[in-house]
C-alpha cells in the first residue's frame, strides 16, 4: 500500500498543501536522480522519471520540482501530453546550498506521488560579484 510522504518543516508542509490542494502525496513511482555532491550550485543536472507509460488512461498530468532552501522554492512545473513514452525529464537547476530536492507528480486520476533527494552543494548559486 502506498505511504504518504513525510515533510520535515511546517513551512514546507503548507507549500505542499497549496500545490496539491491538500491531497496526500504518496511515496513510490517518482524517481529523482541528482549528483550526491555538486561543486557548483549554478547548474546542477537533475533527472526525474515516473513509473508510468503515459497512455491516455494513465499519465502524468503535472510534474513539479521543489527546493527546500532556495529563496523561491518552486523550481519548475511541467505539463505533458501523453505520448505512450516513459515519463522522464532532464534539466539543470540552481541551488542555494546543500539541501533536499523534491519531485512531485500528479497523475490523471488526481493522485499525487513524490520523492526527494539530498544534494551537497559546495558553492551556492546565490553569490555574486559584490561578495
Amino acid at each position, binding site marked *: 500500500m502506498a505511504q504518504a510522504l513525510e515533510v520535515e518543516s511546517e513551512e514546507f508542509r503548507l507549500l505542499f498543501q497549496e500545490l496539491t490542494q491538500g491531497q496526500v502525496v504518496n511515496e513510490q513511482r517518482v524517481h529523482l536522480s541528482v549528483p550526491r555532491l555538486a561543486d557548483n550550485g549554478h547548474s546542477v543536472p537533475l533527472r526525474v522519471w515516473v513509473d508510468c507509460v503515459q497512455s491516455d488512461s494513465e499519465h502524468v498530468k503535472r510534474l513539479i520540482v521543489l527546493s527546500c532552501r532556495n529563496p523561491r522554492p518552486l523550481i519548475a512545473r511541467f505539463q505533458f501530453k501523453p505520448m505512450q*513514452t516513459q515519463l522522464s525529464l532532464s534539466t539543470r537547476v540552481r541551488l542555494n546550498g546543500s539541501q533536499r530536492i523534491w519531485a512531485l507528480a500528479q497523475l490523471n486520476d488526481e493522485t499525487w506521488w513524490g520523492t526527494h533527494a539530498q544534494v551537497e552543494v559546495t558553492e551556492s548559486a546565490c553569490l555574486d560579484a559584490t561578495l
Partner: protein
Amino acid sequence: MTARIVLPIARKLGEPMDVRILIQHPMDTGFMHDVSGAAIEKNVIHSLTLEFNGEELLNAELGTGTAANPFMQFQVRVKESGEFLLKWVDDKGQMGVERAKCIFT
C-alpha cells in the same frame, strides 16, 4: 537569444526519441548584483511550450531555480513527419521561437 532543438539522428517513426531543448538566456534571479553593486533585475523565462504540428507536447513554467541557459530533455513519440515549434516568453516580455523539422523517410 538563440535556441536549439536537438533531435536524434537515428530516429524511427512511431518510436520514442529523446528531444533536447536548449535556450540561451541569463535567467537572472533578481537576487544578484553586478560588479558595481547595482541589483540585476529578475528576468527569467517563465513559460515555455514545445509543439509538434500544432499539438502541445510540453508546457513548462520555470522559476528562478532553473539554471541559466535552460536545458530540458524528454521523450517524445510522434506518428508523422512534421515540425517542432518551441516558444518561450521571459519577464521582460521578450518572446522567442525556434523550429526544427523532423522528417521520417
